[in-house]
């Protein structure tokens, strides 16, 4: 009996707390809630560095760091969706720049355009045109990119390449020549860790980019280039051939496991975004000495980018303060504080070059001169719904290796989602 009463009381309390929570936020309060999945390591430290700048400028604001851990943001996105649909958006949230934001929240009319912010701060001249294109829909800009990561990087073990007198491959043909030599020497040429499939999509998008070139690659995402065209089928065949040179346990590893294989010399190369650079450095390797990098085979002159950015949801509880935060995110000081720690390059082209290491400087050079294209596996090129379907097709393709079927299913997804 007493237990039951206790239970009833507990239920009552629960309802009461929920009620308090619901009427918690009011306009006029000096608060800022920043929602992100930056919970650990360089990301969290980078966010902290930006927070310090913000608090220096706005000492009376209470900064609420709302983070959701795990799954490269997929858990955070699930939480965000619940909050947005429930009508209690955070003041600002982290999102991959591009279609991940545009294809879901912008299409739903839940975001405020930020052109005014770009004009007030003269950002149009310091952000490359390619980036502005990726973050815009119908000439309206919807997020402030904080950093840029590069997807199309081939990392290689220098000791192995020196030992066999090899040059890192520039083209896909070079890649197969090098891979053949390495395989003969008993070294697995390419490391892949596609547990959770996105790393396979990541490798494939860069083979697509290498095989099709930047213009046709961009056309895939706008519907101009068909996925069942001869070019894409050829790229799929190349991808199958590449899969013949990867480690057999790729399905059991994640990307960092694959990077570790390169460190250990079990594999010679891996294609991964430049967060791998942070991993190598954290393991005590010297950039340029122990490991080297190249644009992934066939993609010299193209910069496959993804970017973390912050947006402004409509009905943000503290809109004015959120705009101040976005100003910090887009400022030179903010980006130069965040990026050296996070291990990425600034989205602006006027950063202080003294703060960045050799790899990041080379990425900055390429970023300012190369053709910029959006990454699919990381939310820049396509809406999440499309990416989910691509992952599903990829899951089957890496096992069945049926080029015709994959091309057909990729095209079916494209005709459903391209230009939507």
């Amino acid at each position, binding site marked *: 009996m007493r237990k*039951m*009463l206790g*239970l*009833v009381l507990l*239920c*009552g309390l629960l309802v009461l707390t929920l009620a308090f929570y619901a009427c918690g936020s009011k306009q006029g309060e000096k608060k800022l809630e920043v929602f992100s999945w930056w919970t650990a390591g360089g990301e969290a430290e980078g966010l902290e560095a930006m927070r310090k700048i913000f608090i220096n400028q706005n000492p009376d604001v209470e900064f609420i760091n709302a983070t959701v851990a795990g799954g490269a943001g*997929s858990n955070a*996105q*699930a939480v965000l*969706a619940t909050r*947005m*649909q429930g009508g209690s958006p955070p003041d600002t949230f982290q999102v991959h720049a591009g279609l991940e934001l545009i294809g*879901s*929240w912008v*299409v*739903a*009319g*839940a975001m405020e355009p930020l052109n005014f912010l770009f004009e007030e701060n003269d950002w149009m001249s310091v952000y490359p045109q390619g980036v502005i294109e990726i973050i815009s829909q119908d000439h309206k800009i919807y997020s402030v990119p904080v950093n840029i990561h590069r997807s199309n990087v081939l990392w290689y073990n220098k000791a192995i390449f020196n030992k066999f007198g090899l040059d890192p491959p520039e083209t896909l043909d070079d890649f197969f020549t090098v891979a053949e030599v390495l395989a003969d020497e008993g070294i697995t040429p390419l490391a892949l860790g*596609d*547990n*959770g*499939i996105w790393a396979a999509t990541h490798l494939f998008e860069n083979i697509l980019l290498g095989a099709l070139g930047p213009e046709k690659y961009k056309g895939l995402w706008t519907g101009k280039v068909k996925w069942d065209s001869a070019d894409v089928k050829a790229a799929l065949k190349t991808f199958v051939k590449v899969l013949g040179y990867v480690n*057999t*346990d*790729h*399905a*059991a590893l994640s990307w960092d496991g694959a990077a570790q294989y390169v460190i250990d010399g079990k594999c010679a190369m891996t294609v991964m975004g430049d967060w791998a650079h942070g991993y190598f450095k954290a393991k005590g390797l010297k950039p340029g000495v122990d490991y080297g990098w190249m644009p992934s085979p066939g993609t010299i002159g193209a910069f496959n980018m993804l970017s973390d950015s912050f947006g402004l949801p409509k009905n943000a509880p503290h809109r004015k303060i959120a705009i101040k935060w976005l100003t910090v995110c887009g400022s030179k000081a903010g980006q130069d504080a965040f990026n050296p720690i996070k291990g990425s390059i600034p989205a602006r082209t006027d950063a202080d070059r003294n703060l960045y290491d050799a790899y990041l400087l080379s990425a900055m050079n390429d970023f300012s001169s190369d053709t910029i294209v959006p990454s699919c596996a990381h939310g820049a090129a396509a809406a*999440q*719904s499309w*990416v*989910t*379907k691509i992952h*599903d097709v990829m*899951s*089957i393709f*890496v*096992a*069945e290796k049926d080029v015709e079927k994959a091309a057909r299913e990729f095209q079916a997804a494209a005709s459903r989602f391209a230009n939507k």
Partner: protein
Amino acid sequence: MVRSRKDIAIGMSIVIPCFLVLAVFVYGFIGWTLTVSFTAWEGVLPNWEFVGLKNFATLFSTQRFQIDLLNTVFFSIFFLGFCVLFGFTLAILLDKITTGAAVFRNIFLFPLAISFVVTGVIWRWIFNPSVGINALINSTVGVNIAWRWYTDTSSVCGFHIALIPVVIAAGWQLTGYIMAMVLAGLRAIPVEIFESAAIDGAGEFRKLFNIIIPHLKPILLSALIVLGHISLKIFDLVYTMTGRGTAFVTDFPGIYMFETTFQGHFYAEGAGISIIMLMLVAIVIIPYLYSILKKERV
């Protein structure tokens, strides 16, 4: 017994809040999910356009979902088989030992106390084809095992070989549950029956098949129902241990539902999967509830 008005009032005031909470948060949301599964809701904003059974038709023609259903069937069969076989054997053996039984009982029960997430992570390492059990055998016995465990993409008559490690992990965790149920059941069989059977000259096997198993049937049935609904809804263990797997070899409806709804924003499709999962569990549970209700009425 005559109940006073006060008693009834107290009873009602306790039952009604629970009933309301259940009505809203369980049955209300089932109704909501069912409604969503008939709509064209895709993307982050609700779209209430009625499309009938289209989502279900799409699901059943999707290769991933077909694989998921097949995986669920095979997994349930082997997982239940594993648990009953080992749980039953352990219980019979433990019933025979006089010293140390408590120690072993606790050892076998312990996995039950661990979260599925932890089990998943541990077994992912154990069955990792390059650093797990293969490496251990290689370094101790010197035999090189080429079996790729949960990364194997081959199948036998539709059964994915990669499911074997998952069955072992899930079985490892829940065998103790069957063992505990059977042990309790064994204690409940009157000793006189065994004594008179012994006088009549019945051997151990005779006792097992003619006394123990018939007596344990109701207990085994309830235990199987509990395990059955766990296996039909399996998510956390597989999600942390293997994920969907290459070519969906270790994919289940729960994982598909999570990924398609919360990562792909296909809300109607996700609701459809949820409803199918609910119906699968209902197929197992409803006949059981029915039989219990019938017994109570008698």
